[in-house]
């Protein structure tokens, strides 16, 4: 097992809604090691989204500690959080969140634009490499409207990889895709994971969890289950098992 990338201890998050205080997370502790493929499961209201926001350094915990790649996140300023997001985390969203009317390669370059250490040439080079990694080297100049949902999500994955993050954070990344395409995307995630990339996948779909190596289940702000998946399914195999599209339609 690799070193700990995420270390969470006694994490609490409270929101004040008028006079009421909502306890979204009620003291959570876990850690994620390098090379893991973790799914965080939970129904709506379980604190899953809050967990994701904190993991993604978009939000700060009320109490408890959160360390990512050795950096204590608590008490960092807005700008420092932005830098951590830029250098350590790759985001993938349910609705892809690609810039419209902007080519795939430029979309992938976006995180590097906010990193002044990366030169223009290096930026382009790394974007091309990331797109090759997700199998879109043929469609670099296509805009999102010229790409299918699956292809758009691949662009988003390439974008999350381009800054060489310590962890990819996916938020319902297959939520907008049909079964076949989501298996394709999961298969891509598994391939990336095999190359050593740490992935944290937040979802409410139980079958997605079967593709990961570890599952954390949240309920009402607590972890109710945290288990290693003994029998990881191969998304590529599941994909092959699916009935041919022309037969189903």
């Amino acid at each position, binding site marked *: 097992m690799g070193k700990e990338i995420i270390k969470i201890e006694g994490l609490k998050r409270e929101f004040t809604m008028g006079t009421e205080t909502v306890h979204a997370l009620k003291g959570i502790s876990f850690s994620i090691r390098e090379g893991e493929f973790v799914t965080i499961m939970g129904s709506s209201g379980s604190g899953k989204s809050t967990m994701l926001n904190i993991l993604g350094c978009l939000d700060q915990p009320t109490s408890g500690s959160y360390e990512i790649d050795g950096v204590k996140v608590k008490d960092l300023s807005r*700008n420092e959080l932005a830098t951590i997001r830029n250098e350590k985390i790759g985001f993938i969203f349910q609705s892809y*969140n690609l*810039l419209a009317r902007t080519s795939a390669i430029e979309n992938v370059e*976006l995180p590097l634009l*906010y990193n002044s250490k990366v030169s223009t040439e290096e930026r382009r080079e790394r974007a091309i490499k990331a797109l090759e990694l997700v199998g879109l080297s043929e469609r670099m100049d296509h805009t999102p409207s010229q790409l299918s949902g699956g292809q758009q999500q691949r662009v988003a994955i390439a*974008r999350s990889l381009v*800054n060489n993050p310590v962890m990819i954070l996916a938020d319902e990344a297959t939520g907008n895709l049909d079964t076949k395409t989501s298996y394709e995307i999961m298969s891509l995630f598994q391939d990336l994971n095999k190359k050593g990339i740490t992935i944290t996948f937040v979802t409410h779909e139980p079958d997605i969890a079967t593709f990961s190596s570890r599952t954390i289940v949240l309920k009402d702000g607590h972890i109710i289950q945290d288990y290693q998946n003994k029998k990881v399914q191969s998304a590529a195999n599941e994909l092959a098992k699916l009935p041919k599209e022309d037969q189903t339609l």
Partner: protein
Amino acid sequence: MRLLNLLKIAFKAIVLNKMRTLLTMLGIIIGVASVIAMLAIGEGSKESIRSTISSMGSNMITVRPGADVRGGVKQERSAMETLKLKDYFAIKEQADLLTYATPLVNGGGQVINGSNNWPSTIYGVNSDYLKIKLVDLQSGSMFTEAEVNVAAKVALIGQTVVENVFPDGQDPVGQMIRFNNIPFKVIGVLEEKGENTFGQDQDDVVIAPYTTVQKRILAINHLESIIASAVSEDKAPDAVSQVSEILRKQHKLTEDEEDDFHVRSMEELISTFSSTSEMLTILLVAVASISLLIGGIGIMNIMYVSVKERTKEIGLRMAVGGKGADILMQFLIEAILISVTGGVLGVILGLGATVFIEKFLHWPTHVALYSIVISFAVCAVTGIFFGWYPARKAAALDPITALRYE
């Protein structure tokens, strides 16, 4: 984040929204162009008045008699006799802010050459006159100091006189003419000057030594006026007060007595005539400024909509590492690019419109550099100001809220 990257991002956003950008710019373009064109028209009319007056000698100073009371009767201006030759000599000797000065007497009469005659005005002056009035000689020469001293019967004539008394095109220089039956030898012809702004024919003149005109034609020993030129245009007001002082001393006026003369510089005349056109300019500029302001509000409106419409994009940019300052700069640069480009296009359009007005409407125009600088500066400032507020709003967005924004 490097500025170059921000510029690229802002530039992309503008190019991606060509139509929207163009419409926004239109306000600025029209605003800037109209300010420039309006100011050019205003400046043009001012300039044309100024140049007419300047052609009469812009640093010229005129001294006229002011008050002459004889036996309790206030005299009519033309009958005033308070301005004397010794006043002229005093001024010539003491006023060091003047380069040239001449006494002036004039009278109307008939110019006769053989069977041709023409009513004109004779001006009795000294040899400095042409230099003060900025009149050139077409041929011949000016009379000399010596000829003034002996009251020589020599004269120079203007083009209108030449045309009327020498109609067959012979060279007037060396010919004899008569003015009110006094014979004069023509020793020079003046260059054509045309009409002045006030419709007066500047070529309908006969110029002779003041001594001759005083003695032979008018039989007077006072002066109509003294005209002089100040060392420079901006020294003219000082020269006016200097001359006043000399004359007060000369006329032995006590502290509480009013001047019995008037000293005027051309500058006063210019400002009188300019004030009307200045009013017009202010009015035009006020109207144009309103359109510039509306252009600015247009930018604010568009940037506002743009921030709303791109909330999700802002959320994404923040999620992948964009800082608040980066987002602020992006939108601000976008606003600046729009207003600066609009400003440049506005300047071009304004200059084009000015050329059009000059060419086809034949209005005098003059594009002052300050009008370009001011309108451009105003448009840049409105762009920045109206772009800043929405940009700040964008920068202050919470990345989570922005990402979830639908």
